[in-house]
């Protein structure tokens, strides 16, 4: 079982968002492979934890992906790929995956699941599935946990949200 944080964005109370953080992950290559193969059991946004500045950073990308999903204007395949895309300041989806998505070498992993209206997916089920699938140390997601993880130099605080918000406009 993995530690799962359930996030509700204030204006979207009926859309739970499940977030798990893992350190010392050893099977990133396998996980990434599941995404490439579009394995339906692995519908997550798998992010490289070093590229996430703060919970706020992740929440802003999540908001944009969810809002665009509700408005039916996703630019990528589904809400999970949209989340990865939302993080990027440019309009190139492949580039977004290279920069913010899981790499074979990833050791700090953020897994996000947005079930939208699927009632079968719960914090429980996500916890169980991730606990089985990810080989690594599950830690509680939060400001503190990210502090040691983020590569601050790669990101610029205070600007990043605005650049994300305005991308593609």
């Amino acid at each position, binding site marked *: 079982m993995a530690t799962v944080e359930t996030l509700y964005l204030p204006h979207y109370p009926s859309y739970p968002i499940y977030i798990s953080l893992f350190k010392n992950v050893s099977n990133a290559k396998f996980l990434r492979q599941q995404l490439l193969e579009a394995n339906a059991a692995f519908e997550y946004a798998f992010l490289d934890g070093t590229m996430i500045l703060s919970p706020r950073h992740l929440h802003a990308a999540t908001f944009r992906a969810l809002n665009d999903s509700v408005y039916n204007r996703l630019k990528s395949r589904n809400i999970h790929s949209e989340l990865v895309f939302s993080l990027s300041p440019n309009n190139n989806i492949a580039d977004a995956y290279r920069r913010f998505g899981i790499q074979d070498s990833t050791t700090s992993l953020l897994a996000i699941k947005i079930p939208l209206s699927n009632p079968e997916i719960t914090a429980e089920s996500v916890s169980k599935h991730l606990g089985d699938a990810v080989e690594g140390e599950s830690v509680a997601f939060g400001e503190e946990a990210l502090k040691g993880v983020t590569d601050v130099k790669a990101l610029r605080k*205070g600007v990043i949200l605005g650049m994300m*918000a305005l991308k593609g406009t």
Partner: protein
Amino acid sequence: MSTAPPTIGATTPLPLPSPFTHSPLTLLTQGAEALVFRTTLLNAATPVALKYRPPKPYRHPLLDKRLTRARLLAEARVLVKCAREGVQVPEVVAVGVEEGWVALGWVEGGTVRGVLDGYTPSHPPSHPPGEQKDGQREEVLMGLMGRVGRAVGRMHEVGVCHGDLTTSNLMVRRKEGEKAQEHFETGGGHHTAGLEGLDGEIVLIDFGLATQSIQDEDRAVDLYVLERAFAATHPVAEPLFREVLRAYGESYKGAKVVLRRLEDVRMRGRKRSMLG
């Protein structure tokens, strides 16, 4: 939108676009173009200022959409540019380009207008016990004015002109953990302004009329508008504004030329600056 105008401070559901339709938001200000609400967006603990430009019923729908979109993006882009260059402005948290809203990071603190409102009336000359404290206050206030001048100078230096630079659009950021001061509340006639909270960083807000410009004329008009706002806020604010200009003049290369241009603008009695 044909109902009576909403009341400021009221927490009422308004005809806002999704996802704000069903959330009661607190209305802070209603300008000619935009409504500003306090709400949350990314988590329940962190407030944001939601600036919404409602459709104007008098405008042709196509024209309305085109204008709202262009203005919203211009404002957001100026803010991101400022942030990137290190000018203190609210962070752009999210935008709803088609829906006409932008969510901005909340700035905790009060306005320079609030500080000025609470300034001189409490210190009549016939009040000797306060004298020493007054001297100290003066110094802190002058420090604040210097920071205002440098903040405006920095904004101009990076190529942005504000377009509506009033004392209400200059905020003093409250330091973390510091208590809200009474004099920070705008609009009220508070006479007990203390020294606390005057040493915060200056944050520029409301870039709804901002332009990306390096024209001396635009910069000088910014200063003129601010000068008028100072004068309108308090009759004896003049020495304070002198300090703003002094600090501005030293803040970047080219500032001195703008100060000379300001004198021309004053001479012309710039008709379009009826600020108050």
